[in-house]
Every structure is written in structure tokens, then in C-alpha cells.
């Protein structure tokens, strides 16, 4: 498990070496919030083709939102661009202290089942540290998470 978080840590910090740093301006939490669709035509007819997004992809990738380059952040074959894509739900789960996005992040970074509830509580207690402003990027959240975990008796074992 130590390997896990070390990998995250390494990747987290190596991102600054990209020419266009992932998570630059315009990539803050506020810009990662999900947007919906509305309009009567959409409501009336959207069902007839049974699918709306990403239809042409037979993918192994998570795509890119212009903030994190797919493949730049990976761990164990899974892209951490994933994390960028769930920032909205992740922040909500952290504010509540539980939820599936929180659980998925815990799995991704190798937190063992016995420690997941505690992981949730620690993140919950540190909401304002993790998400200080609407401009906070996924990268910054990830980096802060590592620091928060390092300062916790139970979770520090997952950090290098």
C-alpha cells in the first residue's frame, strides 16, 4: 500500500513539469462542476436515440477536459484524470463525510476497507483545508489530501 500513495505523490508533483501545467488557471473546482441540460425539445425527444454523450468512444481512456492531460496522471493503469472528472461529487461527499465518490477515491489510492470510514471522517473534518476556494484545482486537492493523511495516525501508513 505504501507503493500506492508514493505513486500518487510522485505523479502529483511531477505534473508541474508539463509545458502547460494540468490544473492551471480556469481549472479550479468551480469550473469542474457538472452542468445539466434543459429545454423542452431535449426533454421531449432525448429518449429516442437512447444515449447522449460519448457515443462514439470505445475507449480505454477517460478523455480530457483540457485541464489534466489523459495519460499524464496514471496509477495502476487507471488514469487519475478520473479524479478531475469527479471533483464535484468528491467535494460533496467530503462535505458529508461519506459517499461513493469518496469510497472510490479511497479504493484508488489504496486505503484498506477497514480504514475507509476513518478516511471519510478525516476528509470531512478537513473540508475547508481541502477546498479552500472555488479556484482550488484537482491537483491541489490531491496534494493536500496527502498532507492531511500524513498527519493522521491511522492514515499516515498509506503515505510514503
Amino acid at each position, binding site marked *: 500500500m505504501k507503493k500506492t500513495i508514493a505513486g500518487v505523490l510522485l505523479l502529483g508533483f511531477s505534473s508541474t513539469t508539463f509545458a502547460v501545467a494540468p490544473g492551471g488557471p480556469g481549472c479550479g473546482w*468551480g469550473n469542474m462542476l457538472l452542468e445539466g441540460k434543459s429545454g423542452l425539445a431535449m426533454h*421531449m425527444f432525448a429518449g429516442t436515440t*437512447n444515449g447522449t454523450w460519448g457515443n462514439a468512444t*470505445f475507449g*480505454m481512456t477517460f478523455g480530457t477536459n483540457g485541464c489534466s492531460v489523459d495519460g499524464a496522471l496514471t496509477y495502476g493503469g487507471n488514469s487519475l484524470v478520473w479524479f478531475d472528472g469527479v471533483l464535484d461529487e468528491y467535494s460533496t461527499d467530503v*462535505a458529508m*463525510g461519506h459517499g461513493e465518490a469518496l469510497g472510490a477515491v479511497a479504493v484508488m489510492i489504496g486505503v484498506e*476497507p477497514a480504514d475507509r470510514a476513518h478516511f471519510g471522517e478525516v476528509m470531512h473534518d478537513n473540508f475547508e483545508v481541502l477546498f479552500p476556494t472555488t479556484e482550488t484545482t484537482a491537483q491541489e486537492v490531491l496534494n493536500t489530501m496527502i498532507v492531511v493523511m500524513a498527519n493522521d495516525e491511522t492514515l499516515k501508513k498509506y503515505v510514503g
Partner: protein
Amino acid sequence: MPSVVVASNESSLIDKALGLELHQSRTWHQLLHVESSTRSPTGIESQVDDVRYFLAENGKTDVQAELLASIDALLVNPDAIVNDDHPRCRFVAREVWLRSELGLPASEVPSECALYHQWRGVIGSHSMSLVFPASYLNSPSSMFGHTLLRLDPENIEEGSPWLSWSLNFAADTGSENFSAGYALKGIAGGYAGKFNTIPYFKKLQEYGAIENRDIWEYKLDFNEQELARMLEHVWELRDINFDYYFFRQNCSYRLLELMDYARPSLNLASQFRLTTIPADTVKAVVRADIVSDTHYRASLGTGIQSRYQSIPRHLRTWVEQISTDAESASKSEFTELDVDMQANIVRVANDLITYRSRLGGRSKAMAQRRLSLLKLMSQYSIDESTIPIPEPPEIGHDTRTVTVGGGRSEKQDYTELGFRWSYHDLLDRNNGYLKGAGIVLSDIKLRRYEEGETQLQSFGLVELQSISDRALIFNSLSWNFSAGLVRDAARLNNRLSVKLTGSVGKSTELVRNTIGYALVEASVAQYNRIENNFVDGGLRLGVLNYFRGAAAQLELKVESRHDESMRVSTWLNYNVPLARNHALRFSYSRNTQSANTIQSGMAQYRFYY
């Protein structure tokens, strides 16, 4: 470099294949997606509409030629594998099956097929669920539903389905916007259908968070071998075009085919000959007894509605207040409340602002408001309670309906027979369906008066109804649209006319299970001569009540008729289900125009199948 050299010579393999009549085997037809076709010279044809899928020139219609070409390209004379386009990299399931049928040793997929191995490494095959995003508010066309498959990685049991992948068959509409043309093209087969695999959390976001559809997940009991078999075939369908037809050869049909292929003892797809309604495929899968577990995910909207109703009425204003200004939670009137109640209110306020921000688009101010709400919420301990699970869609009534009834109109008795091709109207037993939404297609009524001939009373081509009960906190529109042939006793001797009607307005839940609505309506009726067009406008006020599966609708309509005086009508419809697929319906109406009043009443038995 070919990684496997086949010892057998071509003619002996081909003789063996023909001797075994492999080209007639069910598995071969499944792999080619063959079905009978009147336009094909051989009487059968593949539903795949893509030359890349066939190794023989006439492979689409000639399954034997395709078999021989496949034996040649995969087993006898495979070219050197230079990239992933090689037939041995693309037609993995074909090769596995041919080897086993022809008594050849099984062979690993060549390591040169890098993309295949990469894909199989990413897409989990530990377990699989059938996923049904239920219909969503204000969108009757979504009532047909949609299905997709969820494929889980090994750590699913301890982790989160957010790490799973979805396998989805959908029309490839490119970047076209939603419109009526889009819908027609979808219905008529104007789009190509393709499989796609994308991260499951994106589907959760699409359906649950953005479209506000509740999601049902049916865990299926396929084992890893069966799933591997299925994925070998799914890989063959990568980027391959099928014709996409909304009503039958749609998402759900293709998924049934895959399940049949994964486990040959299943016979799911063949149960759907004319139409494949996604909700019906869920029922078929449940009937086949392959579901091991059912999981319900409430959408954001459903969660808000349910939790909002758990807040006592006198405290509900706090929700709106805190969602607009998180600071107001520090007022002493609020902090004096029970802390669990505070937590619940703050959570609903947060969910509401999340919901609204998704509708309204991103803005700096909105992001700031949301962050304030999240910070506020993080100061509370929010319990993990989930909302009550509604009745699952598979317990809903079946989707075709026949009716037998009798009534009296203008002092004449009549009998009436009806057939409705699909699906559900506002009054049908709503267990497993969305309350206040209806979609009716091809609704035919034949009527015979005591003295007179049997005649077509009406033909409803399409009717969409949406009477939302969520206007309570959401600002949603209610509306209605219908097109079809109808008779109007007061006009042109009760002749048939083509009529289009649309109405739009607001609705709100008056008390629990009772929705009140007010709609303005406009209609145009055209008779066979152009000078006989009638344009009417009206106001409809009504109440819709649901009680334990029964439903009643009372409506008052005031109409300004094209060339006549005002007409005032009232009607009452009452539907009582007797069992899942049986119901009685009673209706009464009274029309008054120029001091002339017509009353009519009818009783009807309804059978769904």
C-alpha cells in the same frame, strides 16, 4: 509474424466445417447477428451494416461464404500480424469458437494484438449488472427507458461501482442537437448504432446527476468465463455500425443478444420480435432468473423531493433561505433547532443549490454559493440514510393494452373495443412507473352504437402527458401533446378529423398524492376540405389523485370554439387496478354549449399484456 501455425490443411477444415453445418449453427448466427430478411436472396441477413465486419464479400447475406472466409483468414492462411487490424486481432470470438468446433487446440489471442489486450485489461470482467435509468421528470419519451451494462473490476465488492465501466449501445448522433428531426431520425433508423465503453461514473453523472433519472442496477449472475466469452465478441463489434431503430433494434435488444451469447442456454432476444421496450427487457431478464441483487440509486431530484417532504412544513422556508444564503444558518432561530433537523435542512439546501446550478450553468457567483453551502454542510454530521426505495420497474403493468367497454352518449348506448400498442397513461396503475407522466402510441378505438355500423372512433397516433408533482420546489413545466384522428359530435356530423393538440402550464402537489394543474390549450382540427379547419383555444383546470394504485382525474375545461359559442366541459376518469395487468376504468363527461348539455358515461375493462 503468425504466432500459431495451423497444421490442418484448408480442404480438410472446410470439409469438416461443412460436414458439421457450422454455418447453420446458432452461435454462428449470433456472431454475425443474422436474422430472417425478405430483401436478402438467401432469406437471412446480418443486422450489421458495415463491410468491415465481413471477411467474405457477400458475408452480410451468405453465412456459409463468411464461415469459409473466416476459416481461411483466421486458421488456414493468416497473414503476418502487423497491427491490431489483423482478423485474428479483430475476430477473437470467431476464432475461439471455430477452434473449439473444429477440434483444434485453443490458442491465446496473439500478443501482437496490443489494443485488445489493453482493453481487456482495463474493462473488468468480474461481474456484470444490467442498468436501467428510469424515466425522468417531464420527459415522457424517456419513459421507454434505456438499458446498459456495467462491468465491474475485481475490487468491486469492497470498493465502489464508480470504478466500473459501462457497455452501451447507442445511436451515434455526432454533435447534433436535440430536436424533433433528431427524434424522427432515431425512430426511422437514420443513425448508425454502435457499442461504446466509457467509465461508468460518467453514465452515473449523465443519468443521475444531470438528467435526474433514478437508476436501477440488476446484478446478473454471469460468471467470469461467461463474461470473458461475451467481451471477446464485444471486441469484434468495436466501431462496427448497426442500423439503429428506436423501437426494436435498439440499445436493449443488442444487450439481450450479448447475454444470449454469454450464456447459450438463455433465449432473451428472441422474445422481442416487433418492439423492444427497455422496461420490458428488464422484466424478461428478471423472469429469466439471472438477477442476483437489485440496487436503486435515487437521482438528485428524487433525493431532494423525498428529503424535503420529511421536513415539517413550518421549517421548509429554511431550505430556500439557506440555499440562497448559507449565512442565514447562523441565525439563532435556526441554531436553536434540533441538530439533526438542522443537518437535514442544510443537506436539502445544498442539494437544491447543486440542482439549480446544474440547470443554470456555471458562474463564479454560483460556484461561490455552492462552496459556502458545502462548507456549512461539512460542519454537520450528515447521516448516511437513504431515501425510501420505490417499487421497481419490473412490477409495472405490461405495455400493450386491449380494452372492452360500453357506454352511453347522447342517449345512445354503444360498445367499444380498443387496442393500445404502448405504453402508459396518467391513470394506468402507476406502480413501477413515474407518477404524472404518460406516453401513448397507436391507440385505436372502435365503437358501435346500438343502431349503426362499427366505426373507427379515434386513432391516437401519439400522446405525451407530463403533469409534474415536483413544482413544489422545482420550477417545472407541465404539458401535453397529442396527434391523431378524432370525432367531435358537435361538428360536421361527427366525422373524423385530423387533430393536433398542445397544452402547457403549471402544476403543483396540493396534498400528498394529489396534483393540481392549470394548462392553456390550443388545438387545430382539419377535416377533408381545407375550409373546414377549426382552431380552438381553452383553459384546463384539473386535479389528479393517486391512491394505492388507483387514480382519479377531474377536469374542468373552458373552450373558445372556432366558430361557435363557448363550451364548458367537465369530466371525471377513475381507474381501479384489479391486478398487475387488469384494471377497470370509469369515465363520465358533461359538455355544455349554448344551453345544450350532452352527458356521457362509460365503463371499461383493461387488460395489459
